[in-house]
């Protein structure tokens, strides 16, 4: 295989680069070791920062956020909810921080407005009523899965290629320049791709990619854990008005709310085995309750952790104090290795800017003069507003919520899913209203390899039951549709339930425990999933 640019890493940054390059007519292949958005991109708050969170300490980041916030609201509207946000001061907080925040926002050009506590409580009725002050900011939320998928789709429609479930194992070099990569995948085995330019967009794993090229890059892994409750308890993003610290933000998303986050530095070799510590759960709950006292009345659905992709800057060690700024490295300049570029740092919501910076550098190298178009051309799904009314008329007998969910997740592209065939509307995941048609579309058009990938494209298995019924249905359906062999389906089913369990296990109490007992009964008790070995090795011979 041969191409102009190889992109390593399929997070927001990598998929964003693939789109940017494809719109400039540059050929690229993106290689991702797992699935798109399976790294840090799929493990954060999904906050569309207004910039206010950084306004006091890191004005550069604040300015970047504010600018990208406005752009994304135009080009990625089907991935975004303009919820608005609040910064509230609790009695125990330093009241002077509020003024510093207002100053910072005004310096960064962020529209922050002081409002009365009464108005804040009117906007957010479940808020702690003893707050001392409140500031309104244009925070929002952004769905990272939808965002990465839309970027990928756009790139593919413009000729970009994606190879997922293939890890880069080595970088091929020729006389002081890179000339390609070698990859390993479970399906294809070993293969290589040739190109004169490689963009390292591997997030926290960038250190590893650089070391494959014999280059030293030091990342400072800082883990953050988050907890999801099964109820959308707040309407807006609720921030605590103080120096950012553990458990000081509650973000609404889809049908849930999320308490974030902690910050703990971890060893680099621990980044592939992230665990939420038990005391982190305590911290998140305790602090989340301070903002929204009712929050623990809702069931805790999952907890998960991500690692901030921060580059070590000499002298700085603690996670939150380092600049979250974007770092673009031309390794030809820095290390004398021609053709390798690294782009790290930044945030989910600055992915587009990061992609633009990396693409500008690369197009300059290969002599392509076309300018970046991503700030103007909407992503697939955000081209036009889809009309629910129109669709309800076009598809009589199909429930409003089913049509609504497809539109919500796929925006204007929902027209690819909505067809007048009843089979298309069978709900496979009832919690999230994922239909057979949506699954078929994702399998065919969105580069989906297994049930976990499918979850990222459709939200299957993300609702209250965490896959109790839909895992089996989905495994069977993929086989029926011809996407998997029966053996693969069985393996995916087990893997998916283990993946769900990783997030459920840390918050296993109350209804979560009850639900898990049910799922365990079905898959182990009723189906006997754990008995496969007995059958295959013939120990049932005596029957």
């Amino acid at each position, binding site marked *: 295989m041969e191409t102009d640019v190889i992109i390593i890493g399929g997070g927001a940054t990598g998929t964003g680069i693939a789109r940017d390059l494809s719109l400039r007519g540059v050929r690229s292949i993106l290689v991702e070791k797992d699935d798109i958005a399976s790294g840090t991109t799929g493990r954060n708050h999904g906050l569309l920062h207004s910039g206010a969170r950084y306004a006091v300490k890191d004005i550069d980041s604040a300015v970047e956020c504010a600018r990208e916030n406005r752009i994304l609201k135009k080009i990625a509207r089907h991935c975004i909810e303009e919820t608005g946000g609040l910064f509230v001061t609790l009695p125990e907080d330093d009241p002077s921080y509020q003024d510093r925040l207002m100053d910072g926002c005004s310096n960064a050009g962020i529209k922050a407005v002081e409002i009365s506590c009464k108005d804040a409580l009117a906007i957010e009725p479940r808020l702690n009523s003893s707050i001392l002050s409140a500031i309104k900011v244009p925070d929002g939320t952004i769905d990272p899965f939808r965002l990465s998928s839309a970027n990928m789709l756009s790139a593919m429609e413009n000729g970009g290629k994606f190879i997922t479930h293939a890890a880069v194992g080595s970088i091929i070099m020729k006389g002081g320049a890179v000339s390609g990569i070698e990859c390993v995948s479970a399906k294809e085995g070993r293969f290589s791709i040739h190109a004169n330019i490689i963009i390292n967009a591997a997030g926290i794993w960038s250190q590893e990619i650089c070391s494959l090229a014999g280059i030293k890059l030091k990342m400072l892994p800082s883990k953050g854990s988050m907890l999801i409750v099964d109820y959308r308890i707040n309407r807006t993003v609720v921030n605590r008005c103080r120096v950012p610290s553990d458990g000081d933000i509650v973000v609404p998303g889809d049908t849930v709310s999320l308490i974030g986050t902690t910050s703990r530095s971890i060893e680099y070799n621990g980044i592939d085995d992230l665990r939420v510590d*038990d005391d982190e759960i305590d911290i998140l709950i305790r602090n989340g309750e301070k903002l929204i006292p009712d929050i623990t009345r809702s069931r805790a659905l999952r907890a998960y952790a991500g690692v901030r992709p921060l580059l070590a800057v000499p002298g700085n060690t603690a996670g939150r104090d380092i600049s979250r700024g974007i770092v673009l490295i031309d390794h030809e300049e820095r290390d004398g290795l021609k053709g390798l570029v690294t782009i790290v740092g930044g945030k989910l919501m600055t992915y587009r800017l990061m992609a633009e910076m990396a693409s500008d550098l690369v197009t300059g190298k290969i002599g392509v003069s076309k300018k970046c178009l991503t700030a103007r051309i909407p992503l697939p799904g955000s081209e036009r507003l889809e009309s629910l009314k129109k669709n309800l008329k076009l598809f009589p007998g199909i429930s409003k919520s089913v049509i609504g969910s497809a539109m919500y997740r796929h925006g204007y592209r929902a027209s690819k899913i909505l067809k007048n065939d*009843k*089979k298309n*509307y*069978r*709900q*496979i995941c009832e919690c999230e209203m994922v239909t*057979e048609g949506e699954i078929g579309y994702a399998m065919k058009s969105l580069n989906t390899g297994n049930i976990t990938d499918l979850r990222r494209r459709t939200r299957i298995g993300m609702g209250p039951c965490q896959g109790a*019924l839909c895992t*089996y*249905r989905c*495994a*069977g*359906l993929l*086989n*029926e549709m011809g996407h998997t*062999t*029966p*053996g693969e*389906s*069985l393996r995916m089913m*087990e893997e998916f*339930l*283990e993946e*769900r*369990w990783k997030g459920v*296990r840390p918050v*296993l*109490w*109350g209804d979560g*425990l*009850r639900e*898990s*007992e*049910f799922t*365990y*009964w*079905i*898959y*182990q*008790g*009723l*189906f*006997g*999933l*754990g*008995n*496969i070995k*007995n*059958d*295959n090795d*013939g*120990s*049932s*011979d*005596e*029957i």
Partner: protein
Amino acid sequence: MKYDCIIIGGGLAGLTCAIKCSSEGLSTAVISCGASALHIASGSIDLLGYSSGRYLTGDLDTHLDQLIKRKKNHPYAKIGKKCIWESLEFFRQILSKERLNLFSMDKKNHFHITSLGILKPAYLSQRSIFNGRLLDSYKLKKGLVLLNFRGYRDYYPGLAMNQLKKNPLFRDIPLKTGLIELPHYTKTARNMLEFRSIDLARVFEDETYLSKIAEDIRTGAGDADVVTLPDFIGIHNYEKLHARLEEMTGKSIIEIPNLPPSIPGMRIEHALKTSYASHGGEFSSGDRVTGCSMSRGMVEYITTENYSDTRLSAKCYILAAGSFFSGGLKSGYNLIHEPIFNLKVAGGSDRTKWASDQFFSRGSHPFMEFGVETGTDLHPFGADAKKIKNLYCAGAILSGYNPVMEGSGGGVAISTGYKAALEVIKKIKKSSLE
């Protein structure tokens, strides 16, 4: 209103207990708030299916002996082997009277096919899941065909067939899958392709469609002589329907238990409730027991959600409210508790130790063994650690066993329900003599 006994929970344990009590002439009431575990169980009764992850073949009597010796706190150890066998025989007889016959392979496990094509041991099964004849048909090595209804989303025979093919037992049997059409069912505005098993069971019960289904089965099966279907063959007159289908098609028809709701489980529930009613027992469904009043270490009365100001009292009470799934047990942030009487539970206050890191861990999960602690007489202990002498516990609410890992759920529910009834009967007869 004062009863001889009030039973909280109308699942397998509660109903077995209620039938035994009412058949001995005790005035009995069952209060149950929701669907029991029977609505999701396979409908076969497990007695003891596994040991350390391996199937238990051979004499179950011996296996029970070993378990009882090894695990002193196991419910089986508390009630003893004699009572276990007696209870199962009792259970079989009451169902048989309701025309639901259960088959076993003497005192050994038999095996049935799950929807993944994996084999699962059980002790008692309904005729379409296991019977003597079926065993022969496997051995005849004629073909087996796994049929499904087109568009039914809760069952995928392709997965099952592939797994059966890997099983040495089925190696020489020709296997295939096939689809048959749903009967043209007009009584619904719903998307037929979203039908649950219960909707289809109703279709089967409407005999208008039976000959059409039989015709389709015969065509779909070709020359195979064993056919598997998802578990829809009716609830109320199932045995008759199954026999008729076999007659009309000339095939052996096996049912494969499916995603909930469980039709075979509902057959059992229906039979148990009918039997109980025929003994004059009272059943109050849709009401939840919310609290109790204790006096001198005994239960004085209980209250329910619907009749909060009525004091329901009895000489004896049986708590058969199930595990977490049914609400018999509750878990808080760092606490496992029993919500009605606040009984002593085996659980532990460190939630990090409740479950294993892997969902399909070889060692299963500690929470599966959590539950109420009792003595051998099934009396639980109150908050003051003293036995409550007019309260008994039975079924999935008990601690000390792992129904999934051992394959013992149904057996424990039936035998402890029965044992509780014996204790109650003994006590009430004694007190009436005095």
